[in-house]
């Protein structure tokens, strides 16, 4: 049986190619399950998954929740509002309390980089990073890669442009590591104030001019721009941002003929992406959401160490 080289998924940096291939291949199988009338398999029956979301999230949390349910795992949601975290309980104590409830796998989202690693040090469960600070968001990286692979039949040799707030984006970081491991060529584009220090060491092509970045590209993945970045002086106005880095129909003409448009959501329509682009036939934004579920099923399944036939006994 094929297994992953780690029992946790903390990020895509350093994850070997064969692991990514295994996850993407397994996702294929679960994509079929989602298309069935009865969208459920018994694979993870009896396993308890905890959705530990310290940061607001609807999409990712729901996606993991559905993924776990379709695998017949029990899933509980925990978010800090209304819990003892608000009463000043430390992360470690919260986690110990939760673990005393016999949790097998933890899906964690937190505003601080490194929290998923921290959890591996203080509990036995498999840890899945669902976004930590501005560090990584590996399942988003995987679902983006899966979506691209479905369209093009491959990843190697493709040219992928990640545009927007590179500095504060964990999605960008996971995409960079994963895509580079799989042999794609990655370009980063955004205002120079949103390209982080020493960014060239990621080994990507760097652009501040979006038109140049899109020239000959196969994929453009548009990152959400947050208004607070403007408030902290990283660019002068939303208007100027849209003028220089907003993705519109005109700009897409520079891309290769089979190009696709992606966005991890939630979108600011009319800011980083125009509505006609978001809704055009080349947009795979909705497929990303569906694929996200299948990818998360694959990740839960592979990390659990179970065999496909096990839960059905």
């Amino acid at each position, binding site marked *: 049986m094929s297994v992953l080289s780690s029992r946790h998924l903390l990020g895509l940096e350093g994850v070997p190619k064969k692991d990514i291939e295994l996850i993407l291949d397994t996702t294929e199988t679960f994509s079929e399950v989602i298309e069935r009338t009865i969208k459920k398999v018994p694979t993870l029956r009896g396993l308890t998954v905890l959705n530990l979301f310290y940061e607001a999230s609807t999409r990712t949390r729901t996606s993991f929740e559905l993924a776990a349910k379709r695998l017949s795992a029990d899933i509980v949601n925990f978010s800090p509002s209304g819990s003892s975290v608000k009463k000043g309980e430390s992360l470690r104590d919260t986690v110990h309390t939760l673990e005393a409830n016999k949790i097998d796998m933890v899906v964690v989202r937190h505003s*601080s980089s*490194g929290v998923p690693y921290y959890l591996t040090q203080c509990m036995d469960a498999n840890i899945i990073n669902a976004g930590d600070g501005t*560090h990584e968001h590996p399942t988003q990286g995987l679902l983006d890669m899966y979506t691209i692979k479905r369209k093009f039949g491959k990843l190697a040799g493709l040219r992928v442009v990640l545009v927007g707030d590179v*500095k*504060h984006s964990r999605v960008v970081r996971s995409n960079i590591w994963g895509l580079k491991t799989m042999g794609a060529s990655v370009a980063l584009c955004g205002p120079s104030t949103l390209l982080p*220090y020493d960014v060239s060491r*990621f080994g990507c092509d760097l652009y501040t001019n979006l038109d140049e970045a899109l020239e000959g590209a196969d994929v453009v993945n548009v990152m959400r721009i947050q208004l607070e970045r403007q408030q902290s002086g990283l660019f002068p106005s939303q208007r100027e941002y849209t003028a220089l880095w907003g993705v519109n129909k005109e700009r897409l003409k520079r891309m290769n003929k089979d190009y696709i448009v992606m966005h991890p959501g939630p979108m600011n329509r009319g800011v980083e992406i125009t509505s006609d682009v978001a809704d055009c036939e080349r947009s795979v934004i909705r497929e990303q959401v569906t694929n996200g579920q299948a990818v998360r099923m694959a990740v839960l399944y592979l990390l659990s160490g179970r065999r496909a036939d096990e839960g059905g006994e």
Partner: protein
Amino acid sequence: MPDFPKSMVITGGRVIDPAIGFGSDAHLFIENGKIARIAADSPAVRKEIRALKGYQVIDATDKMVVPGLIDIHVHLREPGREDEETVESGCRAAAAGGFTSICCMPNTTPRIDNQETVKFVQDRAKNACARVYVVGAITKNIAGEELSEIGDLVKMGAVAITDDGHYVQNPEIMRRALEYSRMFDIPVMQHAEDQFLVAGGVMNESFESTRLGLKGAPAVAEEIAVLRDIALCRITGARLHIQHLTCKEAVQAIRKAKADGVNITCEVTPHHLVLNDLEIGKSFNTNLRVNPPIRTEEDRLALIEGLVDGTIDCIASDHAPHSAEEKDAEFDKAPSGMIGLETSLALLKTHIIDKGYLDWADAIRKMTVNPARILNLPGGTLEIGMPADITIIDPEKKWTVKESLFQSKSTNSPFIGWKVSSKVWKTVLGGTIVFEAD
């Protein structure tokens, strides 16, 4: 001091005192708590020692006997955070690390910006096992807005002023602090980091902060702060001391300023000399979160170069105790600081002396006479008549840093588990042994 000072003779050790240029095997005589004589070995001296009555004789064969070490950058946390450290426990940690004199920083609660708090700390230190010199705040409540009553602080015994932890951001206030301090001949110690540039930073800005998605505090914040203060120091003629230097550009700026005759001194911590920012991503160990941050390998090597060529005058630990509860947190939510008193010497020996950067005499100079001169402290030498503050070192003793070995009330050290060489064997304060290794 715990006991009435006795007379003592420390025999057979290698006595090193850079202040008087001494460095050979000798016998050290202490009378009434003061250094009485350093005698080269001879049959006559041995006979004399055998005949001594009422002397405590310490056989320091194969040991190194040096002036009591001095650390001019220590946080004792009292008053305010006695759960993390007290004057008493901090002094025990100092003695265990071979330090007989320490300078405590004013960022306690309340701040040491008035005579009463200076007096409080001095009183708490009366029976402690190290000499505590108080550093007062430059500005009231360390708010950077109005000068403290510096004259009052000095009158009560403050040996310097600093807003440590905070850069005096307003150049007008800093200029006045320097001018005003001149009247009292005390140095102004500056935590040199432009607060706007480092706002929110939790580690060095580098590819590591980019990779880890942690907010970076750039080295240029230190460079700018140092350059501004060099200029202010030049026009005021005051004594400026830059605390915990961390980056290459700041070393270069100070090297040039010294060559230009500016009255500036500076310190470096052992952790900035031995760690680089690649460590953080390996474990997100919050004990690696310090302010100013651990920088790149290039910076680390520049610090060593500055230490070797004399640009950097002294070693100071920036001993900063924090409770285990507060450090056991998300990396970006943990407080900054690590303890250092009990690992300074061993880290310096293992990573600076053994690597051939400094010899023992130069290393001891940077932990004794140099810091003493910066702050006009008595001590730092074995000169006849000086109080017998002496550190006896087992120079090649191998040991592993363990949480259970710390005398400090806090254990926030990233060096736990490190194998090091050189251990303090005995610490003597005013002729009384205040620490002995097991």
